[in-house]
């Protein structure tokens, strides 16, 4: 499904290059639950953003379901991204001035879906995530775990094939983190590919594969 070949990313500092990713070759199959691990500054999040097509400044080849992403323009990548990916952030990034339902609805507004249809989808997802009772609350009225649950619901609302999660439990205490990981596990069981960046061995244990990255190099896959 996802095939990265010889992907490199670096920053130019005068004549010197500082590499963030070096000759990265990664293949991820549909339905996998992959954890990207490694020390701080190793390039985990960068790799996640490259996969999510949010980082465009790299070299190499990237195929998504056979399509050569490295040959596409920004607009086409955006269309592919919208059709296939959902994103979960460490610090939730919910909009304070929108209610839970409105936050969840937001990705749908970027996908030309009619208002009535959007409402139906949001109602369905609220029900699936069992947060119907919180739909009119604002983010600051929720706990961290509840906010991240909304973040995951938001990532799932457009029915993506892949969920990218950047340290999704980093700001949560362990019981809340566990709840989120179980949610990811359920989604994965239903067929969604999950790719997460994590420091936690326990969280990685929910997945079926770990990609270890160190100083931009892929160390190996277990």
């Amino acid at each position, binding site marked *: 499904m996802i095939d990265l070949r010889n992907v490199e990313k670096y920053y130019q500092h005068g004549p010197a290059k500082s590499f963030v990713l070096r000759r990265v070759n990664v293949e991820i199959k549909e339905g996998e639950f992959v954890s990207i691990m490694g020390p701080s500054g190793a390039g985990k999040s960068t790799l996640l953003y490259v996969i999510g097509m949010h*980082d465009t400044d790299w070299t190499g080849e990237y195929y998504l379901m056979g399509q050569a992403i490295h040959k596409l323009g920004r607009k086409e990548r*955006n269309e592919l991204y919208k059709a296939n990916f959902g994103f979960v952030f460490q610090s939730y990034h919910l909009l304070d001035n929108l209610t839970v339902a409105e936050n969840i609805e937001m990705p749908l507004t970027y996908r030309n879906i009619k208002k009535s249809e959007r409402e139906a989808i949001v109602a369905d997802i609220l029900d699936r995530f069992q947060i119907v009772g919180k739909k009119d609350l604002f983010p600051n009225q929720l706990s961290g775990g509840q906010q991240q649950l909304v973040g995951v619901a938001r990532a799932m609302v457009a029915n993506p094939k892949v969920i990218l999660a950047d340290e999704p439990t980093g700001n949560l205490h362990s019981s809340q983190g566990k709840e989120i990981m179980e949610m990811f596990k359920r989604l994965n069981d239903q067929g969604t590919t999950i790719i997460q960046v994590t420091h936690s061995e326990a969280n990685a244990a929910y997945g079926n594969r770990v990609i270890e990255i160190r100083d931009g190099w892929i160390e190996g896959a277990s």
Partner: protein
Amino acid sequence: MTKQLRSLASSPLSLAAALLAFALGIGANTAMYSICSALLFRPVELGHLERLVVFESFLRGDHQGLFDVSPADFTDLRGQLQSLEDLGFAEEWSATITRDGEPEQVSAARVSANWFGLTGAPLVAGRAFLPGENAPGRTRIAVVTEGLALRRFGAQKTTASVVGQQIRLDGEDHMIVGVLRETARLPNFARVYVPYSQAADFAHQRTAFELYTVGRLRGGASLSTAQAELGAAFRRLAEQFPASHQGRSLVLVSLKERIAGTNDLAASYVRLLLFATGFVLLIACANVTNLQLARITGRAREFAIRSALGANPWRIAGLVLSESLLLALLGSLVGIPFAMWAVEGMKRMLPSEIWQYIPMWPELSVNWTALGVTLGLSVLAGFATAFWPAWQSTRSDAQESLREGGRSMSSSRSRQWFRGAMIGVQMMLALVLLIGAGLMVRGTQVLFERFAAWQPEKVGTLQLVLPRTKYPDPPLRGNFIRKLEEQLAALPARQDFGLVNFIPLGDSMSIVPFAVEGRPEARAAEQLAANNLIVSPGYFAAMQVQLRSGRLLASTDGAETDPVCVVDERFAADVFPNEPALGRRISPLLDDSRPWCRIVGIVANKDHNPWERSSRRTLYRAMAQVQPRLLSVVVRTDAPMETMLPALKQAVYAVDPEQPVRMLYSQQDLLDQALAGMKLVALMMSVLGLIALLLSAVGIFSVVSYVVSERTSEIGMRMAMGASEWDILRLVSHQTLLMLGLGLALGLGLGFALAQLFRGLIWGVSSRDFLSLASVSLLLALVGGLAMYLPARRALRLDPMQALRHD
């Protein structure tokens, strides 16, 4: 102070934008205050100006003027008005100066001996007149203004050395006893003052209404008390002398207000500009408020730390306030040189022919009072721009701000709306200014176009006043006129020439009431009046006045033949709507004699004054039958004016080498002079409009920049949620766009309302012009759109990864 400076310097772009806004806003207001001071607040330099009052006369409700108190009335009133501690008078006069240079005609006054003490007019050398110097035989002394002294006796370098010199006025030598400051010219901008020769019958001249009378209010006395006193005293006089005084009344008005021309067009223009500069300051304040608001939002963490360390909310608000005040003071420091430059520029742009009627114009500068006003404005602007940001700073949530990786992604809705509202206000004010500027420019253009058909650049003019002493009776004046016509006829390269009393487009004209033979004489208030032109036969060709019916005035219409006149179509239509005008007799009501003249021709209407909306009904009388003292020459020529104008002057000198001349110009020059004030106002309005446009653009740029920077994380998140470039563009600009549109709509409405309000100032402009000027809103929208797009483009180029790591 150092900490505040350091804090301001930490955002150099924001600091530069705020300084620019304050410098332009405060600088423009300081410059405008200086001009207002010269025109309205202190229009003439008289020590007692605030307490001086002048007598204004009315006849059956009709305004008669200021030179309208008889000597006998003055004498009687002086003894009765307890509210006035002193009273003096002046009589206007046009003095001919000969010897020591070219003959020259200047505005002069014969004044009561106490004049300079009464008004507090400052002398730079010599002395004022002494009591008793009004006595006949003691009046061959003069006080002249500094400018005249230096011009006539320039070789002697100092004004003091002019004292004791002789100056020849109307053929008689006068000893200069004093030199007056140029800025104290009163009345009528006089440059020469001599004592009024108070004859023995002074106190008995009841019907010679000719004195300009000024009084000084006693300390503590109010104008209304003095007015009531004068009203009662004059009513008694009117009862005593009904033949000459029935229907007359005298009113006291503040001299300062009368000179400033509270109701005059120039004063209205100055007020218009004062409003316009006020708008610019408001735009600047809205701009800086937004910048300050952006700064305090960005400093939420700093305020939270201060708060955690024990600072109460008001201390933090005080910090914001002190920074705003400092910013305003720094802005005014930059604004002062801008104001000085603007004032000097304006002084240079107004021709001397215009500013000679503004006594304080040469003194116009950014003075201490103006600097005081600047300081006041700075403090005001500092408070105005700090109020909302300071209030907001007291409401920040320290715990939220201090939390690691704070979850809040953007500033509150109220702040967002406030910022948007500031944009809307700026746009609205800028559009009003631009529409105002456009209307002024269009109005000036229309006035110039109105006279283009005359080819005013091909008409040379000159004016002279035959001195009463040298040309006391009509035959002598007739002789002068005849000889002058002979000289003009001999001029090479002239096409047509004519003589007229008042030059069309000149600085004055004569409007006289008239009676129609066979009709009862109307009351003063109901009398018809017409432009009174006394012309030679050649005038019609020189000024291209077309004959419609009858005949033009001819050289055969002389002093011995029946008086005849020609009227224009408007006159004929207004006065004889249902009967032929030709053959009817009319009489200008100038004095008790009733010189009936028969209408022999009707000519096309002609505009004579750029300030009049339409041509005024005009009466043309034969110069050979009237022989006025005021003579003007108009010559149409293809020759360059540089050769024609000196030739005109020589033609006059060939008749009388001692006869001074004035207004030696082409009519284009006269038109330029007449419209110079309006051109200057149009230019200043345009400059203010452009400043407003610049400030608004900077305002939008900085707000959208700030929005992009503040919402970078949100932008990243939305991109990660699938937002397209268009979605992001809409996100960062929709509120600004909405407010921009709202501001423009309100600005259009307000601009239209103001155009109606000021339509008296900007004539020649139709509603169609307003609509085409409304297209400036498109310009503003384009500039606003660009100012918004440039920083918004930055948001489009963000990588979500960079954006999400922003905080």
